């Protein structure tokens, strides 16, 4: 394979990772605040269909993206309302919404199925586009892919380097302490869940207006991505940079599956397309296993140098979820 082809392929990997990134960062923000938004699969499908429908009828791509943000925010608002105000299980509400929004997108999207509508155009950045290698890789993308690059850093700075970010971590980690410090825990959780949902709501339109332009109903190939987003969020350890690594890894593996297809004629394409998922589980296991009690006990029995080495690897892989994630906050 020539270098040019390789660069084009890798640039495609970055493009294809953009929607996953928006989903993962949105979910990370929501979970950092203590709310699991399990509706992601429905959110992505409904915003993909909705965003495309809006762009199709108005001829305006920007309105499609705005519509996606609004739909994503509203779904998240439902999760927040049912779990924070009504104190019902976040997981139950999110799961029902994941199925409901998926079916809703198929039903409402039926009339526009297969239509050709507007799509995002490539926006090469002057001068930078001509930088050898990097130009082809990074600077001949569309606007949402550029935004996805920026989003990673922006989210990291917000979460780890600003005061509101500290509060965000606080309400997900130790809500009672944050409350004593004067935070309105439930209001902040509402805000961050909706903001996270709105960010994730961009993922759908990125698919339907760019990466997999159009709406093709059940054969759009989008069903399941939301569940992957949830897995990558954990893999990312609620850290935007690690989450980005997960999203790019996933996208790369899917691309490799396509590229390697001719080399592996015995393996059906359907299998290669799902190949990243088993790997995802394995990494989930590695991410979590350091938290298990028996691992510590076994480690204690190892000789010191080996123990230190293994502990170091586990610590590098390990990620601890926000400790109040999934639990409602009660004032005492």
């Amino acid at each position, binding site marked *: 394979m020539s270098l040019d082809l390789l660069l084009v392929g890798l640039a495609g990997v970055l493009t294809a990772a953009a929607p996953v990134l928006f989903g993962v960062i949105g979910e990370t923000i929501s979970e950092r605040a203590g709310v699991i938004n399990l509706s992601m699969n429905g959110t992505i499908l409904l915003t993909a269909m909705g965003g495309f429908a809006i762009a199709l009828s108005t001829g305006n791509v920007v309105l499609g993206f705005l519509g996606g943000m609004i739909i994503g925010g509203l779904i998240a608002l439902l999760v927040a309302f049912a779990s924070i105000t009504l104190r019902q299980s976040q997981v139950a509400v999110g799961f029902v919404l994941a199925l409901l929004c998926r*079916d809703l997108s198929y039903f*409402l999207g039926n009339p526009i199925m297969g239509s050709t509508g507007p799509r995002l155009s490539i926006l090469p950045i002057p001068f930078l586009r001509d930088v050898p290698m990097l130009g082809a890789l990074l600077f001949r993308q569309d606007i949402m892919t550029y935004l996805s690059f920026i989003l990673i850093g922006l989210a990291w700075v917000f979460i780890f380097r600003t005061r509101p970010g500290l509060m965000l971590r606080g309400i997900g980690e130790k809500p009672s302490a944050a409350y004593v410090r004067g935070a309105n825990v439930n209001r902040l959780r509402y805000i961050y869940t909706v903001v996270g949902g709105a960010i994730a709501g961009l993922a759908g339109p990125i698919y339907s207006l760019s990466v997999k332009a159009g709406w093709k109903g059940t054969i759009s190939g989008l069903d399941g991505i939301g569940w992957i987003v949830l897995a990558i969020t954990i893999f990312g350890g609620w850290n935007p940079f690690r989450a980005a690594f997960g999203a790019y890894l996933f996208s790369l593996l899917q691309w490799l599956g396509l590229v390697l297809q001719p080399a592996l004629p015995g393996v059906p394409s359907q299998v290669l397309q799902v190949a990243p998922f088993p790997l*995802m589980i394995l990494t989930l296991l590695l991410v979590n296993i350091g938290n298990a009690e028996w691992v510590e006990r076994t480690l204690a029995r190892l000789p010191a140098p080996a123990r230190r080495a293994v502990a170091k690897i586990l610590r590098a892989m390990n990620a601890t979820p926000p400790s109040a994630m999934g639990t409602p906050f009660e004032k005492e």
Partner: protein
Amino acid sequence: MRSQRGSQSLNALLQGAAVVVALCLTTIVLLISKAPPISAYANIVIGAVGTWDEISNVLVSWVPLLLVTAGLILTFTVGLWNIGIEGQIILGAIFATWALRLLQSSGLPPGIIITAGILAGMVGGALWAMLAGALKAFGGVNEIFGGLGLNFVATALNLWLIFGPWKRPGVASMSGTEPFPHELWLPTLTAQSRLSPSAVVIAVIGILVVYFLIRGTYFGLRLKAVGKNASAAYLLGVPTWQYMMVAFALCGIFAGLAGAIQVTSVYNRLIPAISSGYGYMGLMVAMLVNYQAALAAPVALFFAALNVGSIQLPIVLRLDSSLAGVLQGTLVLLVIIGQGVRQRLTKGGPG
């Protein structure tokens, strides 16, 4: 006593309201897509109970849904969200197919081969469920995320088998593996029907077993104790993680049974979409009946009827058949919200 009766009637009122509001919301969805609501609903009803064929199709789809729901009630009772149920159905189907393939030319009586296939399916489902359980108990992987991942792995495995080692002679295709010979089909009501009376009996026994297990046994009591408060149950001497594993295994057995029945009586071969989404639908049914076995059978029947009834929508009214899912999802969502509203109302007032 008074207040309890009051809260019960409030409960019934809210449940009724949920059904009405769900229908209203679905009607709005229909109006948005410029479809005639009355004839859409009429089509679903006719599509579900219009002919004997359709009624028997409803029962065909009721069997796996009820089995899956029965298993899920056990995992919910112990406080687990077994979202990996889809994969457990698939593994049940794979194991059943495997056993049938191994034994089909063995010369054993067909009855024994079919029984072996169904038992193998139960083992397959249980193993896959215990894998999710082991990931949770020993790997610290939340059962929701472990289960989701395992669903994808099961799907991949299924596709690989259909397109690889078990492909049809000549050409592999999405239509599945080579159908089994007729004598290895679970006997059906009539030659054309896919409804097997023994499958219905198995499903009914399944839900009864779960009902009595939870209601009337020491085991069920301990399951409930773990589900209500795992750490308190642990302190009182209930081996918590063992109970979770057993609940997973039992649920896997039910899911595997559902998968094996799909293979032996409905499709008579392994197909890519063998689980048909029954696992996720079972989660919805279990939530809707508030994890009580008593109501599972009628509610699962209602869901099955909606699914079968909506199959005709694309042909007759050019509507997508996902309307059934919209109605089901709205209903479950409203029941959850209704529960929250009721808890607020009954807990409200002073203090």
